[in-house]
């Protein structure tokens, strides 16, 4: 008898709205303090957290950031407690407190939230995120951890309402095992959705493939990262490049960092950009004749096996609140 009473008391406490409220307040405090401290340490802390599924961040990055990551551990613990409280409260409604349609709207909201949480847990545990994937037009690249290959077919500027170039649209396709799985045009707010895998465009970056350089000993075409011989024992190497708009120290793109290598080793190094006059580097005078530019689409590809739980949860949440609003207005 005594055990039953204790069990009943524990159950009543677990399903009480007050329990949910206390946990919610703690959850809010943890997130409020933690997020402000994390922001003060690094205003862009979210970029690292959003770059990988949450479980990966929690497993790999959070321990390295301890004690700065205390609030995330606290948040995880409190979230599970809040969810347990909601789950028990919802079960309680089904078992003990069902009275016709009364309270259905609230239960729909609870179920929606629980589904969203379940979807988040699934996505965090079994999802994958490939960020900043660069693919040349007409080329393809493997999307890490997803089993897909991403192919970029075309890149087209999109005109805005005033007729000026406004956005970039690329036609992309996803392939698996040699089979095309999905294809579509992507641009801002319009990703390619293939089940639980989504391709998000991040813009188009012009990449320098090679540079044609005129020297006092002749002209050469040199690929970025390669070298070419201009005369016996004298080579010109392109060490790196800056795409249009990029900056590195005092240098602005587009341009290439060139090294002259003689028989004695490196004899000079210089940054060349279009329009510059001849510049001396070691025993040569160099001038940039032309750059071979290639547009690359930049993409994030996210795979989230829990996303349909989240969508159904969001739909239930919306339905529950619409129902609640309808009931409210019908009553007044």
């Amino acid at each position, binding site marked *: 008898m005594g055990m039953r009473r204790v069990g009943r008391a524990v159950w009543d406490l677990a399903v009480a709205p007050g329990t*949910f*409220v206390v946990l919610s307040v703690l959850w*809010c405090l943890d*997130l409020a303090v933690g997020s402000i401290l994390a922001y003060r340490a690094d205003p862009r802390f979210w970029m690292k957290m959003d770059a990988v599924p949450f479980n990966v961040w929690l497993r790999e990055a959070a321990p390295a950031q301890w004690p700065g990551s205390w609030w995330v551990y606290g948040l995880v613990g409190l979230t599970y407690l809040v969810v347990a409280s909601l789950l028990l409260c919802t079960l309680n409604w089904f078992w003990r407190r069902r009275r016709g349609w009364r309270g259905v709207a609230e239960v729909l909201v609870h179920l929606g939230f629980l589904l969203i949480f379940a979807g*988040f847990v699934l996505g965090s545990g079994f999802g994958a995120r490939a960020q900043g994937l660069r693919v040349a037009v007409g080329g393809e690249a493997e999307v890490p951890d997803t089993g897909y290959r991403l192919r970029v077919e075309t890149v087209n500027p999109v005109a805005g309402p005033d007729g000026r170039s*406004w*956005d970039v649209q690329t036609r992309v396709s996803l392939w698996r095992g040699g089979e095309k799985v999905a294809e579509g045009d992507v641009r801002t707010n319009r990703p390619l959705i293939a089940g639980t895998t989504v391709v998000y465009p991040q813009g188009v970056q012009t990449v320098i493939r090679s540079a044609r350089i005129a020297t006092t000993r002749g002209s050469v075409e040199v690929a970025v990262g390669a070298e070419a011989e201009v005369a016996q024992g004298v080579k010109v190497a392109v060490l790196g490049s800056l795409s249009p708009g990029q900056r590195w120290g005092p240098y602005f793109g587009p341009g290439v960092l060139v090294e002259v290598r003689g028989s004695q080793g490196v004899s000079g190094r210089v940054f060349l950009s279009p329009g510059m006059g001849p510049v001396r580097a070691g025993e040569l005078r160099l001038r940039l004749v032309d750059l071979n530019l290639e547009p690359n689409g930049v993409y994030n590809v996210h795979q989230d096996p829990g996303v349909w739980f*989240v969508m159904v949860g969001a739909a239930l949440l919306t339905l529950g609140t619409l129902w609640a609003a309808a009931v409210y207005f019908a009553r007044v």
Partner: protein
Amino acid sequence: MLELTRMAHYVALGCYALAALLCLAGWRTDRLRRAGVGLAALGWVAQVVLLAARWGRVGYLPVTGLFSTLHFLAIWLVGMALYLGWRYRAKGLLPGALALGAASLAGASGGSMDLQPLSPALDTPLFLIHVATSFAAYGLFGLAALLGVYRFAGVPGSALGEERRMLDECLYLGYLLFTWCMVAGSLWAYLAWGSYWTWRIKGLWSTIVWFFYSGVIHVRHRPAWQGWRLNALSVAGFGLVLFTFLGLGLLFETSHPLR
């Protein structure tokens, strides 16, 4: 457009400020109070006409910077106060609500009145739903806070003695609207950024606001939470809203900048 904006802005600001004084002075005098309500309605119409004109000019709901967001907040604050005033004969609510509306417009004066052209990121119907529901909710939360202050101070907000019911309506409808704002925002984030949940500080604090009001909704009918506790929650909630909207937008580097 800039001239029209400036004119409508100051007309609305002047109307609200004067209407607040008239409503306050006319607490017990119907003629003054009616003049105040008429003036408030005139200011509100000026705001709505301005919003429609700017919307027509740029082709999207122009609620992005400090000026236009505070204007939009004032539209909802005053609009909802006029509605509650009509429905519950809440003549006492108007001076406070109009003062809040005027303060909002005075704050808007510090922002740029220029119209920004539509950007690809805002080119989605989710933007309209997200913004409209969030500011409608903010307006209702603002009125709930005001009613909380009135109840603290023992000032009557309604001739029918319906302050408690108005407070409940503001909290409940505000919460429903804010839930839709969160759903639309999350869906938009999923389509634009790659996840319905991100760790950006604005999103985190918006979730805090939603969780806070979830708690308030759960306790608002509990006997232990009536009286000063519910009033305090209403005021604290709007404090959270203001920090999330203005504090983060002005002082932090966020996805919803106001600077």
